């Protein structure tokens, strides 16, 4: 049997692991803990091996055509959706990232969570997440993608609220789920529009038709948009929720209430990038809706800079990383919106490695600090936990864009594409954000690992390097943070830009049908390219240097700026009051309105009119009752009058 034929096992195994651990958790609470680890890490491990084998076979196959595997179908009326998987270059990249990074985070979790009472439950959720994420990326149609899409949302809800006996984490989980659902609503509408037009949701049936007849998508559809524009907008709103873009990014920082490996896996490496994946997957539609593409890019750029600016003043180590994630996702959308789909996926891949590494590193620090997350109470950890320090520093260097590391190549690719399409304003934002990124990440490194320890005495005694189950994943991911960029070295630097060419079959080619598309990608002079490259390196280096100057000696040099611009500092510190604005503007009025509907409308008007009717009936009855005098002679009179009436009726 070929490994490719076992593709269905890739998502099925983690789901089975989740079911098994879940059942044991409910019905055999005293089961040995080792079984939880064995199932919880083993199933995703085997799933990764199958995935790697399938990828290997796919890449070395004689026939490079996309591989599809159909399990069964949903059919209603004339509408049929296969439950089927697809392996093509894009899903190969995603599959590798998700299974590989996912597996190592599972390994890490076995160490990080080992003292938690909900150990087995944790693995059940985490495996379920893996299964759902794999469904999302392996789907060959939008419906199965949506199944995975909501599935990861559910797991995110459960894992953010993992510490359910406190009040904040479940609330954060609920917020994540609901905000995601707002996006899902638009995603659904987009799917309905597609299905209504094409009668199917399968990629391989829609996209070739789109490429074959692009004019059909350029007709006016709704909201003043073309069909392509409408679908693209709906899908992007879906992506806004999942990938935390303005205005739906508010859930991601709160999601840090979950265990740290969860933040690494779900809220950095995999789930939050699903939106980017979806946009790239539907690139055939986005290419036909340039106005929405620009919108995507603008939202991405603004999210990048907004989140980075908030990240500047955060003191919680995980919050810094959370805003950093939002910001980096903004970068990816910047690229995707401008049509640089491969650059977006490239950054998605490198980001998965270095951001997972950074989160796991922060987890290692938090583990050692006994749960403390405030960087003001850390400092000088460099000498207590060298492996964590070096890997964390490497991750920081990668995200800051130090030449040669992963983030340098992918971020440069994005900035290059921004400039190449002539969006200099967005380029400036991207460049500035790169500097901010370098600054806040180095600030975090400095506050955590440099200077003197600022925590309590007890904590200092307790400081230790993490066990090998946690440090090995750090080392593996650090290798990825260094090397994953090498697959996409641009031609300017003597590379072959292998990654771009590998993914190009997935990008719809309209050059035959719409010649103006081909002309858009203007060639740039090599000297300009060099200038851009130097500018982006410089931005990173300035950020790094300035952060070291302010924080390098264990002081909070940023306080100077806070004093100089107190209003700005308050604005950033309160995250632009976005949560508060949503609360006042949407949640509370809606709550008041609902209560009015219930008490004022349902109880008073609707039910009140019913009660009024009942009351009127009762009143009539009370009145009629008075005629029952109990006196025979009055009855006789009624009788007499009745007879008279009858006579009148007959004789009139």
């Amino acid at each position, binding site marked *: 049997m070929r490994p490719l034929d076992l593709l269905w096992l890739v998502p099925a195994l983690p789901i089975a692991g989740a079911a098994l651990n879940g059942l044991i958790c409910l019905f055999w609470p005293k089961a040995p803990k080792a079984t939880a680890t064995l199932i919880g890490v083993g199933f995703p491990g085997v799933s990764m091996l199958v995935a790697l084998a399938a990828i290997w076979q796919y890449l070395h196959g004689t026939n490079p055509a996309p591989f599809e595997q159909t399990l069964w179908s949903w059919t209603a*009326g*004339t*509408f049929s959706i296969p439950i089927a998987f697809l392996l093509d270059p894009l899903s190969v990249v995603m599959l590798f990232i998700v299974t590989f990074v996912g597996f190592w985070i599972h390994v890490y979790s076995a160490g990080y969570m080992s003292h938690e009472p909900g150990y087995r439950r944790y693995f059940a959720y985490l495996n379920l997440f893996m299964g759902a994420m794999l469904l999302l990326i392996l789907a060959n149609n939008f419906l199965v993608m949506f*199944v995975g899409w909501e*599935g990861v949302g559910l797991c995110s809800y459960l894992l953010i609220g993992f510490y359910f006996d406190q009040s904040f984490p*479940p609330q954060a989980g609920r917020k994540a789920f609901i905000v995601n659902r707002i996006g899902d609503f638009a995603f659904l509408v987009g*799917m309905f529009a597609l299905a209504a037009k094409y009668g199917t949701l399968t990629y391989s049936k829609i996209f070739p038709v789109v490429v074959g007849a692009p004019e059909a998508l350029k007709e006016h559809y709704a909201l003043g948009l073309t069909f392509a524009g409408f679908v693209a907008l709906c899908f992007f709103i879906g992506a806004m929720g999942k990938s935390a873009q303005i205005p739906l990014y508010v859930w991601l920082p709160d999601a840090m209430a979950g265990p740290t490996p969860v933040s690494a896996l779900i809220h950095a490496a995999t789930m939050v990038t699903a939106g980017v994946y979806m946009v790239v997957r539907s690139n055939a539609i986005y290419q036909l809706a340039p106005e929405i593409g620009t919108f995507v890019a603008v939202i991405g750029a603004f999210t990048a800079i907004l989140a980075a600016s908030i990240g500047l003043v955060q003191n919680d180590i995980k919050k810094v990383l959370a805003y950093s994630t939002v910001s980096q996702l903004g970068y990816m959308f910047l690229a995707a919106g401008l049509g640089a789909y491969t650059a977006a996926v490239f950054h998605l891949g490198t980001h998965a490695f270095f951001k997972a590494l950074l989160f796991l590193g922060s987890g290692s620090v938090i583990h050692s600090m006994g749960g403390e997350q405030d960087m003001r109470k850390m400092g000088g950890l460099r000498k207590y936990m060298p492996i964590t320090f070096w890997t964390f520093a490497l991750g920081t260097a990668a995200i800051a864009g130090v030449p040669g590391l992963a983030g340098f190549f992918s971020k440069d690719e994005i900035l290059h594409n921004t400039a190449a399409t002539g969006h200099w304003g967005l380029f400036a934002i991207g460049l500035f954000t790169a500097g901010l990124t370098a600054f806040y990440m180095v600030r975090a490194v400095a506050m955590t690992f440099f200077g003197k320890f600022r925590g309590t005495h007890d904590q200092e005694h307790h400081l230790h390097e993490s066990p090998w189950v946690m440090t090995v994943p750090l080392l593996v991911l650090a290798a990825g943070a260094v090397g994953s960029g090498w697959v996409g070295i641009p031609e300017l630097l003597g590379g072959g830009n292998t990654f771009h060419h590998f993914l190009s079959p997935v990008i719809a080619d309209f050059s035959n049908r719409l010649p103006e598309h081909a002309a858009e990608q203007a060639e740039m002079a090599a000297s300009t390219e060099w200038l851009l490259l130097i500018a982006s390196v410089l931005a990173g280096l300035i950020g790094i240097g300035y952060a070291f100057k302010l924080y390098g000696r264990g002081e909070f040099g940023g306080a100077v700026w806070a004093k100089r611009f107190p209003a700005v500092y308050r604005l950033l510190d309160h995250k632009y009051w976005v949560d508060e604005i949503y609360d006042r503007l949407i949640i509370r009025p809606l709550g008041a309105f609902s209560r009015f509907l*219930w008490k004022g409308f349902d109880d008073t008007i*609707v039910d009140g009119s*019913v009660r009024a009717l009942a009351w009127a009936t009762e009143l009539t009855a009370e009145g009629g009752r008075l005629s029952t005098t109990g006196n025979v002679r009055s009855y006789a009179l009624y009788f007499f009058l009745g007879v008279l009436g009858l006579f009148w009726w007959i004789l009139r």
Partner: protein
Amino acid sequence: MTTFLDLLLGDTLTRLVFLPAAACLPLLLLPKGNAKATKIYALLVSLLELGLGIAYVAARWVPGGGFPLLRDVAHGTGVGNPPGLSWIGAYGIRYDLAIDGISMPLALLTLLLLPIVFLASWKGIEKHWRSFTAAFLLLTTGILGALFAYDLFVFYMFWEVMLIPMYLIIGIWGGERRVYAAVKFFLFTMAGSLLMLVAILWLAFTYKELAGVWSFAYQDLLRLDLPLSTQVWLFAAFALAFAIKVPMFPVHTWLPDAHVEAPTGGSVILAGILLKLGTYGFLRFAMPLFPHASVKAQPWLVGLALIGILYGALVAWVQVDMKKLVAYSSIAHLGFVMLGLLAFDLVAWQGALLQMVNHGISTGALFLLVGMLYDRRHTKKFDEFGGLAAVIPIFSFWLVFSTLASVGLPALNGFAGEFLILLGSFRTLSWATVAATFGVVLAAVYLLKMLYLTLWGPLTKEENKSLKDLSWREMFALLPLGVLMVWIGIAPGTFLAPSRPALESLLSEFHTRAVETAPDEPMLRALPALAIDASADTPTSQDGEGR
């Protein structure tokens, strides 16, 4: 010649319908003080009935294909061999039961919920177990009869038969304001159904005028082509009766009260089946009988369905009583079903029918769970809960699971139905569908609030610290529902296939008639509107003829 007794003793729909009613008689022989014997008897009868129902369907349905239209008596006596037995001959009223792909899933759901109701009431119901059993058995007879009736008079009779046991269930075994709730339920339902009776009589009189003979038969009355103005009035009468049952805004206010006061079993059947009779009525009677009026009323009813979806969701969100929250959620969910029906689209209709079953399963499970919590704590107020996940993990698992099914999480049943409804409606009712889709967001809002207020957060109340987790009995009650939630969610095809041919022919007939202009005078269509399916000549009906 076939007689009623033959039908009752044969493998027929009649036996399915009347077995529960007949099973009430031995209850009199059971010892009065021995509730346990009654419980066991009730459970056995309901299981037997379920087994008979499954056997009936399994013997006549090839998996993967459509479920045929089957009649107890396909060719009765009389001019032209009309189906059924003559009952009140002078007025052409015939006892005619039939099952097809539309009524079959709902009937099986009814039979499935019955043993679950008895299991779930095992501890919660303390008094009058014999009457309790009898009420539910009679209710089952009424529901099945209404689902199978192919004669409008017989339908009306069973429709009213359902009413009384439910009235008693709420009024006798209910909560504190049970009498108020029971009377309200009774009056609302009765008000609507009386108007429907008038409309049924009107149809029969018109038929008599045109055809010269009396008939209340569904297939005969379908041949009536009425002027638009008449259609509108008659449709309004039918629609009101069904809308109250669904319930649609603004005639929904009986539902929260009825649910809050009803005992657990009553709520399960009420939400699981009785509400579906409303939507079933639209699908089976109101729309096919009055196609032009349906099309004319579509915008209004869509508006009401949308209001129901959004309004039910918002009001559910601010409830402080767990059961009331679930009750309002029913209004929102049934709004989706109505939207699907009003789209007059095959995908949407299939989705709507699936969603009727789904809502019975997942909301049924939610009511069971609320009842189980009530049995333990004797309250349903959110204030009294919080942090229960730490004490009763198995209960929490089930609550989360059922809630997610109700939220419409993909890979669980609710999603399959909602998705198909919205997908089908989008083509004809685009903007309404978009608005309804937003209801999906609100569903997450109020149902996750319920989870948060009961299961999550710190465990503060002292009384909650020693709660007992679910017993095996309770888990057995939930298990079939849980299995169905996953099964329907993953492979809805199995559940969609049987109903497809029936819905398809109903819909194509509907569209054919709706595009013709309505006549100025009542007219009779030449051909039977629904040709009696060739597959009606099954062994059963042939047996019937042979005797």
